[in-house]
């Protein structure tokens, strides 16, 4: 029970967590600046002898089948998928935020018939795994001609993520003092004006945190876009990366480069909004 022993134990625990989370990323980065030959070397080389950005060039500008060693890349495809991911994340997040902020306020503040029951149903859907409805979802989307469209994906993301966002914002609405909006009502606002001019600004930190959570969730989605997209009209980067796994041989540096590039936007976002997200998830915002 010496404090020095305790501190060493804590340090080791943190070290394990850091290695566990950052290890794969570090391996990804070193792989992406290696050559295919170095990757296949035995014994394993952790750090490339001649770091090169060739994999990135191949990924973005396209390769011949020969040089890529099984993995085929075409100029513009990867950046196209990055663009798709960006559009999907931003549009879905925007729509979800509008809907869930209003819903959270309504459930949190206003008294209306069946309000509690509706909220329970809404929150209850959070626990339903998407796998349960995936076949029905596919059929529905196919019937509506929404397969392989960004529109269709956005609709699915909005439907699946709105309950979580509403629930997170609801807790914030419940913790917020009511007086500022009452003051706004007295100061001449209608209910919706008070909402837009006073409530939403008051919720801004929570909304920012939820926005970050949503962007990260949509960016990381794999199963749904895998199922509902087939071409680059809608295919996001998570699905596109799997294309670089060759049938017989895989060019690991290219695969790793794709992974690293796909990681940068959400990593930046998470870094910027780190404090707000942890605050939100810890229940205070």
């Amino acid at each position, binding site marked *: 029970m010496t404090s020095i022993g305790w501190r060493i134990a804590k340090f080791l625990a943190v070290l394990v967590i850091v290695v566990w989370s950052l290890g794969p990323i570090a391996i990804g980065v070193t792989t992406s600046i290696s050559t295919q030959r170095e990757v296949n070397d035995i014994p394993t080389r952790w750090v490339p002898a001649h770091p090169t950005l060739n994999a990135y060039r191949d990924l973005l500008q396209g390769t011949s089948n020969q040089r890529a060693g099984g993995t085929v890349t075409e100029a513009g495809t990867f950046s196209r998928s990055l663009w798709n991911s960006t559009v999907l994340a931003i549009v879905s997040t925007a729509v979800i935020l509008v809907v869930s902020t209003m819903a959270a306020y309504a459930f949190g503040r206003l008294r209306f018939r069946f309000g509690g029951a509706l909220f329970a149903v809404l929150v209850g859907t959070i626990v339903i795994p998407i796998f349960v409805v995936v076949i029905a979802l596919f059929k529905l989307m196919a019937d509506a001609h929404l397969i392989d469209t960004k529109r269709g994906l956005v609709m699915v993301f909005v439907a699946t993520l709105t309950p979580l966002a509403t629930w997170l914002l609801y807790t914030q609405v419940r913790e917020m003092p009511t007086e500022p909006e009452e003051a*706004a*009502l*007295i*100061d*001449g606002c209608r209910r919706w004006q008070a909402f837009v*001019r006073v409530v939403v600004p008051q919720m801004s930190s929570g909304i920012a945190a939820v926005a970050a959570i949503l962007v990260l969730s949509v960016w990381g989605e794999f199963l749904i876009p895998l199922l509902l997209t087939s071409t680059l009209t809608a295919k996001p980067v998570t699905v596109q990366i799997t294309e670089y796994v060759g049938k017989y041989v895989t060019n690991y540096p290219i695969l790793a480069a794709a992974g690293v590039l796909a990681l940068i936007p959400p990593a930046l976002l998470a870094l910027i909004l780190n404090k707000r997200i942890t605050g939100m998830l810890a229940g205070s915002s």
Partner: protein
Amino acid sequence: MSGTISLESVSKQFPGGVLAVDDLSLEVEPGEFLVLVGPSGCGKTTALRMVAGLEPVTSGEIRINDRLVTRLPPRERDIAMVFQNYALYAHMSVRGNMGFGLKMARLPRQEIRSRVDGAAEMLGLTDLLDRKPRQLSGGQRQRVAMGRAIVREPAAFLMDEPLSNLDAKLRVEMRGEIIRVQRRIAAPALYVTHDQTEAMTMGDRVAILRDGVLQQLGTPDDVYDSPVNVFVAGFIGSPAMNLIPATLSSEAGDVAVSFGTTRLSVPARVLERRPRLAEFAGRPVTLGVRPEDFAPAERGDGLANVTVDRVESLGSELVVYLDGGVGEPLTARLARQATLEPGQQTQLAIDLNRLYFFDAESGEAI
């Protein structure tokens, strides 16, 4: 001077069945500062919120400036309200906060600017106009909340315990300031507090509420000198009035009241003022004695037998806790010259002309 606030038989029953306000009628006259006071949970804040339109009324009517507003939303009532926790808009500057209501009323920008500047000057906020609320102290926030209310030039002011978050010194300062500002604006003000000192010092009139029922409405002197029942007698005044279980006896026209080993004969003047008192002969009554109506024995007529329990010096005077043989301790305020030691058995004079009598059963004043 214009504008009134009037409540006519206003009641509020909450969905759970709690009757928060029961048949409340009162009128705040033009330019008047009326304080609604009572212990927490007495319905005073609910009453205020009904006037503001933040809480629907169950029955009764509310008029502001003779205009029926009972079913109007808050924005159409032409009122301004100051909240207990100030309720400032955190994302707006002081100027934005104060001008918000005017902006919503679509006043020209120049007009908003000059009105905000004027109010800021009156409240000493001129240097703070560009700050955000979180950069202000409690007293400054309180001033901004006041400023936001007065720039609107409303028909009526509502204030919900606006001073309770301030420290004692600032509270005394702001008491004066609020009164000064309200006098200048001359709009009627309905002010809610649980603090009887605030009620007594600020109110032109004071309305005392208990369990949603209005107990008494009158000037501070009225409610202090002639409380209508035991509740008002005990609530108004600090330290509180001594309420002593006693019996009234009458022998050959000589009426006396006794408790413990003390027997006080009631002067004829008092009997004249309270003709019903004779009817209570032989029955238990509650005798009311204000702490300041005690005096050292040599100075008064009625002598009470007491044992000194504890003596607190406030510097200017002594607060003495006494055992009068009635179970409850008695409180007396005496001049500092009085020499009393804990444990000492002594006699203290009671000003017999200032005795209060209450029906022991109903609590009503006799």
